C-alpha cells in the first residue's frame, strides 16, 4: 500500500473519530453538573436565571444540548468563557500560541537532548559516563516538574537574577506586530532582534523545566533500544565491512534504535501539554494550561470542553504523524494491514 493512500484513508476516518471524541467530551463534562454557575451572580432573580438557561438551551434535553454545542463548534462558536469574559474563540488562539511556543521549545529541547543523551549513554554502556547520564535521566523522570520549576525559580530568578519571569518584557514587545502569536517568530518577522532575544530569554527556563521530564523518558528509551540494537548481527557486519565505530553508531544502530523511540516521542507530546498546566502557573506564562486551571476551578465548561476537544483532535493528528514517521523509518511496517 502506498504511503499516500494510507494517509488519505486515515484522513477519511478522522472526522468519525472526532465526532466520537466530541460526544465523550460533552458527556464527561456534563457529569460535573450544569454549566450555568459561571454565568450567574447573586443578584439574579429566578426569572433571569431561567432566561439565561433558555438562551444557552440549558432547559432542553442533553442530546439536544449536545446538538446545539456541536453546531456551534462547527460554526466556530465555542461558547462564552466566563473566566476571560469573552467568547472562547476569541481568546483561544492567543492562549494556544503561548502554549505552543512553550511546548514546541520544550519538545525541541527534549527530542534533541533526549536522543543525544540516550545515544551517548547507550554507546558507553556501563561506563561512568553512562551511569551519570542515567542518574540524570532517572531524576528527570521521577521529579515532579512543579517542584523542579520552583527550585529553578529560586536559584535563577530569586537568587541569581539571571532569568526573568512571564512571557516577555511588555515595553519591548509593544511595537512588535502580532502575526503568529508566537513572540519569538513575531519579533523575527518584524526584524526586532532585541525583542527576539528578550522572548528567547523568557522562554529558556520554562522550556527546560517542561522538557526535562520528557528528555529523561526519551533518553532512557533511546539508551535501552540502542543497547539492544548494538548487540545485533548487522552491527558486527557493519564493523566487518570496515566502518568506523562512529559510523556504525550513526548509520546503523541509531537509526534502528530510533524506531521505538519515535513512538515514545509521540506520547511525550501529551506529557508536555499536561505539564504546561503547572509550569505556566509557576512561570506566569499566559497560555492554555493556566487558563484551563482557572476554568476548572471556576466551572467554566465552555472553555474546558474546547480545550479537551482540541487536545483530543491534536492527539489524533500526532498519532497519524508518528505512524507516518514510523513507516518511513522502518520499511518493514506494512501500512493498512
Amino acid at each position: 500500500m502506498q504511503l499516500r493512500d494510507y494517509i488519505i484513508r486515515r484522513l477519511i476516518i478522522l472526522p468519525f473519530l472526532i465526532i466520537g471524541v466530541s460526544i465523550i467530551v460533552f458527556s464527561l463534562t456534563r457529569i460535573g453538573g450544569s454549566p450555568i454557575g459561571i454565568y450567574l451572580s447573586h443578584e439574579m432573580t429566578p426569572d433571569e436565571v431561567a432566561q439565561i438557561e433558555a438562551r444557552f438551551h440549558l432547559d432542553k434535553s442533553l442530546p439536544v444540548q449536545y446538538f446545539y454545542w456541536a453546531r456551534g463548534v462547527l460554526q466556530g462558536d465555542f461558547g462564552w468563557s466566563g473566566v476571560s469574559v469573552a467568547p472562547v474563540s476569541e481568546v483561544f488562539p492567543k492562549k494556544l500560541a503561548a502554549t505552543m511556543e512553550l511546548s514546541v521549545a520544550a519538545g525541541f529541547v527534549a527530542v534533541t537532548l533526549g536522543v543525544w543523551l540516550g545515544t551517548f549513554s547507550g554507546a558507553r554502556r556501563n561506563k561512568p559516563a553512562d551511569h551519570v547520564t542515567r542518574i540524570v535521566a532517572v531524576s528527570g523522570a521521577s521529579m515532579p516538574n512543579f517542584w523542579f520549576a520552583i527550585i529553578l525559580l529560586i536559584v535563577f530568578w530569586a537568587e541569581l537574577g539571571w532569568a526573568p519571569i512571564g512571557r516577555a518584557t511588555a515595553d519591548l514587545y509593544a511595537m512588535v506586530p502580532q502575526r503568529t502569536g508566537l513572540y519569538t517568530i513575531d519579533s523575527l518577522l518584524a526584524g526586532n532582534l532585541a525583542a527576539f532575544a528578550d522572548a528567547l530569554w523568557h522562554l529558556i527556563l520554562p522550556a527546560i523545566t517542561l522538557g526535562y521530564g520528557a528528555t529523561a523518558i526519551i533518553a532512557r528509551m533511546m539508551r535501552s533500544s540502542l543497547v539492544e540494537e548494538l548487540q545485533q548481527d548487522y552491527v558486527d557486519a557493519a564493523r566487518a565491512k570496515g566502518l568506523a565505530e562512529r559510523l556504525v553508531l550513526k548509520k546503523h544502530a541509531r537509526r534502528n534504535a530510533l524506531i521505538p523511540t519515535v513512538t515514545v516521542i509521540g506520547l511525550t507530546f501529551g506529557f508536555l501539554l499536561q505539564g504546561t498546566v503547572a509550569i505556566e502557573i509557576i512561570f506566569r506564562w499566559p497560555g492554555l494550561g493556566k487558563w484551563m486551571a482557572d476554568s476548572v476551578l471556576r466551572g467554566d465548561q465552555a472553555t474546558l470542553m474546547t480545550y479537551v476537544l482540541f487536545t483530543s483532535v491534536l492527539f489524533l493528528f500526532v498519532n497519524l504523524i508518528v505512524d507516518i514517521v514510523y513507516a518511513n523509518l522502518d520499511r518493514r511496517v506494512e501500512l493498512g494491514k
Partner: protein
Amino acid sequence: MMGHLETDMADAVRTAPATVASVRDLKVHFAAKRGVVHAVDGVSFDIRDGETLGLVGETGCGKSVTGRSFLRLLPVPPGILAGGSVTFRPHALCEDCDGAGCDACGCTGRKAVVCPSCRGQGCATCDGTGAETIDLLKIDTETLRKLRGDRVAMIFQDPGKALNPTLTIGQQVAEVFLQHRTDELIELAGLSPETGGALRRFARQDHRFGDGILLSLPPFRGQRRRIQAALDKMVARALAETQVPNPASLMDRYPHELSGGMRQRVMIAQALACNPDLLIADEPTTALDVTVEARILELIRDLQMRRRSSVLYISHDLSLVRRICDRVAVMYAGRVVEIGPTAEVFRNPRHPYTRGLLAAVPTADTPRGGLAAIKGTVPELVDPPAACRFAGRCRHETEACRRFDPTLEPVSETHAVACFIDHPAPEGDQPSFERITE
C-alpha cells in the same frame, strides 16, 4: 609446548604454499559469574594461500569465537584476548603481470606485500618470510578498520540478521566501496584525483554538517551525482558477480523483501566486493534451505577460485566440509584436536572425537536407529583442569588422559593430532583404539 610442530611449520612455510594467516596459541576467555570461561584455549593453525580450511566442531567449541578474532569482532568485555596471535599477510595485485598471472606470482595474479621492515630479506617481524606480517590482535583500530572488509571479510550465519533492516541493499553494499575504494570511485566518476573537500567526504561516507547543502548546489550537485552513479555501477557489478537476477532493481529493495538465499548472496557480494585475501565464512548456509545451500556453496567456491582468496569455513556440518574444504581442523572444547588434509582426516581420523563425529554422520547405509551419538556433553570450560578435554566422554581413555593434557603433535607431514593414542603419554597407560573403556 608446540615446539615440534612450529619448527615443522616454519620449514613448510618456505617450501610449501605460503600462508595467508596463522593463528598461534590463541586464547580467548570470557568473564562469567561462575568464573573465567576458556572459550578458546591455545588454538594454532595456518591458512594457506588460496585454500579452504574447514573449522568444524559442535556448538560452543569456540570455532565462531576463533573466526571472529580474525576481525577482532568479540565483545570486550566480557571477552578477554588472553594471549596468542593471529597474524595476517596481506596481498596486492602482482605488478609484473597486473593480475594476469605470471611466474613471479605463481600464476595467481596476486603477491604478498613485501615486509616493510626488512624489504623482503626475511626478519623477525615477518617470521623470515619476507612478506608483510600483521598481528591482527595488536594493530591499532584504524589499521584494523582498513583491513576489515577490504583484505579480510566475513560472511555471517544468518543473513536475515546480518543486514540492516532500515537500509536498502544498494546502500549497504555501497558502504564497502565508500570505506575502501574512494579513489577508484572518484576516478570512475571522471573527477580529478585531487578532488577534496565535501565531494571526497561524500565518496568516503564522511558526512559533515553543511555538506548536504553544499553538495545540493551547482556545480557540486552534478559531481555528486556522478560519484553516486559510479557507486551504483560498482554495487551493481558486485551484485552481478553473485548471479542475482536484475541487480540494478535489487539495489532499491530492503532486506525483508528478499529470500534467505538472495540475502546471503548480497552478503557474499558485500564480503567479496574488495577481493579480500581471506574470507571468514561463519556457517553461511546454516540458516538456509538445503536446496539453496548447494547453490550458495557453489557460488562461494566459484568466486574463491576466480579471486584466489583463502577461506576459513566454519561449520558443524561434516559432510559439507568434506565437500568443499582442502584441509580441516577439528575443534573440541576450545582446542584444535586434529588438523590435516580433508581426505586424510576423513579416511584415517586419529582422534577419538573426530571418529565419534564421523560415526554420528548418517549415510545412506546407516540402518534406522543406527546413529552413533557421542555420550556425555561438552565439559564446562570454567577453569579447565590439566587433562585431555575429551576425557570423560572418550571410549579409549586411560588414567594418563585424566592427568595430562595432550598437545597437537604431527602424525604425518600434513596431519597433526592432540591425543596420546599416537604420542606417548608422559607416564601411565597408553590409550589405544583397540581397548575400549566403559
